[in-house]
């Protein structure tokens, strides 16, 4: 397949312009700048907060230099605290076209629309000249998340994604799973799969942090409805989500913005460090998808049972529906029908293979269901993280 080669050597499967609002006050202007370019890959992302946050800045640096991104337009009101100069410099250093529009200096809403749209027209032409190079499946980073789950997710869509993850790792690709809050009870198995004992200890520490965080927030655990749906134990429920991780060795634990240094399977720790400060770790599925993309994911595998419709800015989302009835009702929104496993129309292995093929076609440029429907969701909230320790990425030391 043909990829877009960036000057840092990374390869992207899309050539997106991100229009980035740096405070909610600039959101409308950013949205309207991008509005005439609905048929192009011009995506609006942003951070609503007026007060600075290191995590949000680092997330933006990772996202705006993601290999699927070709150029970046920053839209600032002018008085917010976001460090727009640092973000612009990071993007410039990566070799991408970047400009900063400060609404208060440009002369207000209408003038900023005009200047911004003119910049996008010019830049779209410029992006046609980004070099195309051959890219193998082994160069892909694939993230996974589940949302709108039901009793079918854990027995059809999630094991099928696990099967696809095993196949991807065998092809030399990089895979990332997360949702540590839904992995409570799986820690011993993750320790068993960790490539070093020290990594195992990091996983245990991460899971302890997760349990503590959720206890303080007072949610998470095993509900009566789970038992009515046929789940008997907490570890069984968690394994339904964990099934997305397949059966391979666990190569490392990363945090939002860390790009895995080697191929293999990685756990993304999305739970903030330190005392509980900014509320829920992830307010919705879109926040988790944004973090997977900040870790370099070219493609997201999203499993659902009840029927989520979301896509994402920057990286395509492939939706894998575990419930055959939901699939029939919402097939326009779905890419893969894993529900057929439950109707005897295929095995987990068949669907795993179908998912890998679907990834290949998506990487070759074919639109996913959510892309063709114009879904480009994005959200970024306040969080705080400590850097990962040296034991988290054992192969990076070698």
């Amino acid at each position, binding site marked *: 397949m043909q990829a877009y080669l960036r000057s840092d050597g990374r390869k992207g499967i899309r050539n997106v312009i991100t229009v980035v609002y740096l405070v909610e006050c600039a959101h409308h202007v950013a949205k309207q700048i991008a509005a005439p370019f609905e048929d192009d890959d011009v995506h609006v992302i942003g951070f609503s907060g007026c007060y600075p946050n290191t995590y949000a800045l680092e997330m933006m640096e990772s996202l705006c230099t993601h290999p699927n991104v070709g150029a970046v337009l920053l839209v600032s009101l002018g008085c917010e605290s976001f460090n727009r100069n640092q973000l612009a410099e990071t993007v410039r250093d990566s070799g991408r076209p970047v400009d900063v529009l400060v609404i208060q200096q440009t002369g207000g809403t209408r003038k900023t629309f005009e200047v911004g749209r003119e910049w996008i027209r010019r830049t779209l032409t410029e992006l046609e000249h980004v070099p195309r190079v051959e890219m193998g499946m082994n160069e892909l980073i694939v993230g996974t998340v589940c949302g709108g789950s039901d*009793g*079918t997710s*854990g*027995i059809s869509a999630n*094991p099928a994604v696990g099967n696809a993850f095993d196949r991807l790792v065998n092809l030399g690709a990089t895979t990332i799973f997360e949702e540590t809050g839904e992995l409570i*009870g*799986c820690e011993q*198995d993750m320790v068993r799969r960790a490539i070093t004992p020290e990594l195992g200890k990091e996983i245990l520490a991460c899971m302890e942090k997760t349990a503590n965080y959720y206890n303080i927030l007072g949610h998470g655990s*095993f*509900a*009566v409805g789970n*038992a009515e*749906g*046929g*789940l*008997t*134990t*907490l*570890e*069984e429920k968690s*394994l*339904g989500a*964990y*099934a997305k991780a397949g*059966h391979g060795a666990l190569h490392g634990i990363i945090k939002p913005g860390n790009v895995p240094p080697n191929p293999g399977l990685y756990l993304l720790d999305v739970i903030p460090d330190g005392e509980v400060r900014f509320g829920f770790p992830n307010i919705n599925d879109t926040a988790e998808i944004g973090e997977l993309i900040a870790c370099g994911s070219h493609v997201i595998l999203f499993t659902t049972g009840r029927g989520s419709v979301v896509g994402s800015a920057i990286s395509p989302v492939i939706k894998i529906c575990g419930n055959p009835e939901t699939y029939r009702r919402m097939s326009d929104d779905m890419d893969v029908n894993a529900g057929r*496993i*439950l*109707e*005897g129309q295929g095995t*987990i292995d068949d669907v795993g293979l179908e998912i890998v093929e679907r990834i290949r076609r998506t990487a070759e440029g074919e639109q996913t269901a959510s892309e063709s429907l114009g879904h480009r969701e994005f959200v970024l909230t306040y969080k705080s993280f400590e850097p990962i320790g040296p034991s988290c990425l054992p192969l990076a030391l070698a």
Partner: protein
Amino acid sequence: MQNQEQYFLRLSANDNVLVVVKAIQQGQELELEGVKITAQKTIPFGHKVAARALTAGEKIVKFGMPIGSTTTTISAGEHVHTHNLQSDYIPSFGRPGEGGH
């Protein structure tokens, strides 16, 4: 497949439970991986049955991984749930009077 309709799904090769993917009625005669069984009770979609006879204290394996231990002997095809399986991690909760083991 002999049966036109599929009732049981094996998630992993070394699992000792199968997932019920179509609700089973009490007294129904079914084939469980080649063995004829008669359902002793109604079992809803999404629940589990034993793939083979199990002894008390045996690890139950689903997704290829342990999900808890049996509290009693279980025969092939029998419903596996809160009345005969418990977490090795923390106890599960049930509504008072339902499945209180």
